[in-house]
């Protein structure tokens, strides 16, 4: 996308450079240039021609040459476009796959932290976990990460939405004090809406009172 944009800028400005600089002899049609770009080049040239009438002839020659190029390009275009589309789709799929793998790897490297009931205080083991997460974010992964706050099923659903957010913010604040840039981090609370363990035991509840890290796409 960006590449195409740059190319069109080059295509647009090339004739201008030629016209204002070394006016006459060159301006060969570029075989690789697409009809659309040629057209815009022709327009640019025409506009320039209004300013500098001396280049009228070469402008006409170039327009003719461009037309020829356009015809040739049109003949190739369908096949080229299809190939490009296929390539783009394959590239996108590959890129998505790679991104998903990378996100999974990052998420795997960023460990979940856990909390006591109705508490968003970070315990020492969780501070240690967050220290390792901070190291990873500072050294290995500079992309954006979301901290998801969760609660167990025992609190009220409404209060848990606020509590889950406080947990996520407590973890975020600790990471920031460890030097992780705050604009790399964001929070969202799911309260008790997304338990990892649907059991009704203390063990299940302990697993659910957590802050998880996910990669922001």
């Amino acid at each position, binding site marked *: 996308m960006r590449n195409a944009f740059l190319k069109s800028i080059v295509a647009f400005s090339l004739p201008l450079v030629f016209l204002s600089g070394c006016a006459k002899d060159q301006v060969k049609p570029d075989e690789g240039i697409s009809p659309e770009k040629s057209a815009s080049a022709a327009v640019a040239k025409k506009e320039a021609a209004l300013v500098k009438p001396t280049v009228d002839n070469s402008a006409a020659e170039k327009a003719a040459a461009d037309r020829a190029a356009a015809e040739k390009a049109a003949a190739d275009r369908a096949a080229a476009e299809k190939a490009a589309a296929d390539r783009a789709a394959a590239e996108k799929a590959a890129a998505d796959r790679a991104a998903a793998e990378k996100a999974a790897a990052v998420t795997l490297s960023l460990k979940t932290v856990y909390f006591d009931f109705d508490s968003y205080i970070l315990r020492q083991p969780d501070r240690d976990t967050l220290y390792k997460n901070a190291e990873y974010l500072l050294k290995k992964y500079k992309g954006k990460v979301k901290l998801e706050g969760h609660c167990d099923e025992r609190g009220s659903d409404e209060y848990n939405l606020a509590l889950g*957010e406080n947990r996520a913010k407590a973890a975020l604040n600790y990471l920031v004090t460890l030097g992780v840039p705050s604009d790399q981090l964001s*929070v969202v609370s799911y309260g008790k809406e997304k338990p990892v363990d649907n059991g009704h035991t203390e063990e299940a509840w302990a697993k659910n009172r957590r802050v998880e890290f996910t990669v922001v796409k």
Partner: protein
Amino acid sequence: MISKIFCSLFLLLILLLPAAVFGQEDFLRVTAAGNRQLILSILPPKPLSGELNSKVAGDITEIFKQDLAMTGIYQVIAEEQGNAPFTSDLLLKAGYTVAATSVTFEFRLVELPSGKELLAKRYSSSTQDIRRVVHTFSDEILQTMTGERGPFASKLAYVSTATGNKEIYLMDWDGYNGRKLTANGSINLNPDFSPSGKELVFTSYKNGNPDLYRRELFTGTEARISSAPGINITGAYSPEGNRIALAMSKDGNSEIYLITKEGKQLARLTNNPAIDLSPTWSPDGKFIAFVSDRLGKPQLFMMRFDGSEVRRLTTSGAYNVSPRWSPKGDKIVYCRQYGSGFQIHLINPDGSDDKQITFEGNNEHPRWSVDGRFIVFGSKRNGSESIYVMRADGSGQMKTSRGSSKDSHPTWSPRW
């Protein structure tokens, strides 16, 4: 779908018969002599003309019996024969005519032994609206007998996982005519009706963040009215319907704010490092009760609607949440944690008379019916999560949601 229901509502012709003019002077015939329940006999519904239709007749009897028994005022007996026993205090007579797509009804409430007709109405409706018509006459009976119309023709909004996601649904109070309102495949929570009953607010994650949405029931139009960074939850319409109190965390932690129903911020009502949320308005709009953990654990507090004069409401129990002010203003219903679950309590707005009214299962999210007679709530008991309705004293608990899905977060609509 909804608009169709409203249309058929408007098409519903309600014709007062001359007989209904008298019999209005003495309300509060709630109990018979000796404080016993009034015995109300429902006679077998008869065709006014044409064929006997046992389906329609059965529906009429079943719906009246369920509604009127739920009031707790009547001992309701569906009579097999065409005559009431002489012990009956009230007689309910129903007639119907079933046409191709419509039904005409005549309902009469007769006082015994005088034989005086207390109430008589004729309705006609489409065949799909039979339940609604019968609920409407139940509401009329309560109006006539007590001076306060019943809530049976109004609706419950609730959250159901029937699709696998938490979507907002609407159903009759007894669980019939359920229909899905939202279909965004995300998490939708906490519906709250506007006082007009024509719209509701709810929190949805459909754009990633827990934002507050307002939905018009007629049109299905949805607007995101609060999408501040962080939570935008527990929205509650003010009694006049133009403002919404809600909890947002955009300024660091969960605080209560006042916004217009279009989403413009009017005021910040709380300001402290604790969690403040779940606002509920007094019916006169002068006070807001809410939940705060500013003293360590979540407790109910009260403030004026401008955020001044904050005082603590609950003084016992370690974890008290989810308050809702009664429509009459005399009670606040809320949930107290016991072990790993919740039970429903009532408390007076001055903090007195704190009383537990449910004892079975795990009960959350209590909301009043518009007349204050009933409370709807979500309950986990017998291994399922369903919507229950009970009388405001905790008696008469009845499961009303019918699916096998997990149903929660109910709220009872105003009359509409």
